[in-house]
């Protein structure tokens, strides 16, 4: 029988807090890249608003899209970075030989990601609204389901990415970083999904962020948002989260069976 202890899950968060507190190299990435993105895309939208004669406001469509996409990426990386800290410090043996369970460990990674991605979100909102006038009122209350769907999907992708690294070994972290960039073209972050060829639209249908960005554009265009589409994307994100956690647990079980935890750095699976 496995019992869940918040104290044990909390120890994973505490470890991450200790690491961040004492390291500029960990503090800066929490907000530096997203701040750079906001500034770059902020000026680009300002320029586009100036040169195009259309009534379209690029700030909520482009800058808002970048903000939401960066939020998803930060949530995902919040999970994987917390996991990779154990990879980098070769801590698996100590960790998994303790009473810590996989649900507790994953909960700790998720809570760490909430802590780190919230910092990035606050900085992005401050820059986007303070400098470039992005108003979240333009999205209305639907901003919350947007953020929630992207958060859940980000967590799911982070857990899957951690499972990939656990399976393939430390060097496979390079599979993890490009995941948001690979998903972005399908998710229709900057353009309507109808722009894509049919097969890419089929993939987009299975990606929760696609519905979020489609809905976002509809709100800005003054069109009605499909509640069904939003419910689909939210439900899909939850399914991915459950699947991701199941995959991680399976990979961990495999790692225990073949001895991967005990000799992780040997990268015996390739």
């Amino acid at each position, binding site marked *: *029988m496995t019992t869940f202890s918040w104290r044990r899950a909390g120890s994973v968060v505490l470890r991450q807090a200790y690491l961040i507190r004492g390291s500029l190299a960990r503090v800066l990435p929490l907000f530096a890249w997203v701040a750079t993105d906001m500034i770059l895309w902020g000026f680009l939208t300002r320029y586009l608003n100036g040169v195009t004669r259309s009534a379209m406001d690029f700030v909520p469509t482009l800058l808002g899209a970048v903000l939401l996409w960066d939020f998803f990426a930060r949530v995902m990386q919040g999970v994987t970075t917390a996991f990779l800290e154990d990879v980098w410090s070769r801590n698996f043996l100590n960790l998994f030989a*303790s*009473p810590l369970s996989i649900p507790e460990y994953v909960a700790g990674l998720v809570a760490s990601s909430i802590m780190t991605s919230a910092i990035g979100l606050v900085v992005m909102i401050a820059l986007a609204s303070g400098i470039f006038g992005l108003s979240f009122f333009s999205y209305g209350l639907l901003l919350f389901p947007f953020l929630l769907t992207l958060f859940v999907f980000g967590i799911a992708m982070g857990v899957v990415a951690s499972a990939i690294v656990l399976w393939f070994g430390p060097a496979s972290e390079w599979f993890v970083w490009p995941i948001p960039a690979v998903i972005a073209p399908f998710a229709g972050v900057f353009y309507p999904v109808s722009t894509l060829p049919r097969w890419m639209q089929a993939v987009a249908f299975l990606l929760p962020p696609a519905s979020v960005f489609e809905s976002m554009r509809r709100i800005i265009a003054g069109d009605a948002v499909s509640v069904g589409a939003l419910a689909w994307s939210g439900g899909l994100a939850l399914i991915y989260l459950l699947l991701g956690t199941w995959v991680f647990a399976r990979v961990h079980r495999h790692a*225990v069976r073949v001895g991967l935890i005990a000799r992780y750095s040997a990268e015996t699976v390739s």
Partner: protein
Amino acid sequence: MTHSSTVARVAQGDAPAHLVLSVSRLCKQYGAFVAVADISFAVQRHEILGIVGPNGAGKTTTINMILGVLAPTSGSITIEGYDVRAERQRALAHANFAAVYAPLPGNLTVEQNLRIYGLLYGVAHLKRRIEALLETFDLGRFRRVKCGTLSSGEQTRVQLAKAFLNEPSLLLLDEPTASLDPSAAHDVRERIQQYAATNDVGVLWTSHNMREVEETCHRALFLSHGRILLEGDPKQLPREHGQQSLDDLFIAVAREPVSGEPR
């Protein structure tokens, strides 16, 4: 973690109360390669059991299986009557370990590492416990030093402090004195002997230092090619097998070809 709950559990018939660890018909195979072949042994309360054997004999594989980080191909392991596979959390809450190949994260300070592992093991009155261990292992001046900057001997002491955090019923020590100078190694041996003598606990100890095994362990298992070849009092074993010392016996056993049934 209380001994009373353990006693209650043991009384239900899960394991004899005097056994801290029970290993039964344990096997680990990787394809055709047999790392551990049908071994059985137990650790009693107040006992320090030494496992010795040449490199690749299966010592660390056995310890990894006891710690639940490696699944056996067959066989069972119980710690304080709890099956490591079926009741992993309860079993591991009664155990802890220190090994040269499992240093604590070098990017955290000694105190931070002990706090995190104290939370993981559910240690009560953690602050007080950490203070006591810092003093016991002479680590007070390193409390705010990152573990990665410590000497290997100092890191070993931190690992030992972590291993004692939850006052485990079963203490697994894989070459715990390998990086220590003779004086520090002597202190560690004394501390562990005292821990086993004054508490209802058992210790499983691996070492390549035969003098240490002779001096510290009440009983020793000679493991080779995943099999237990000899078992007995390390002070008596050499004479019983016609050897001058435990070192000589080790060499003789290590050079023995793989044959016969495991004991």
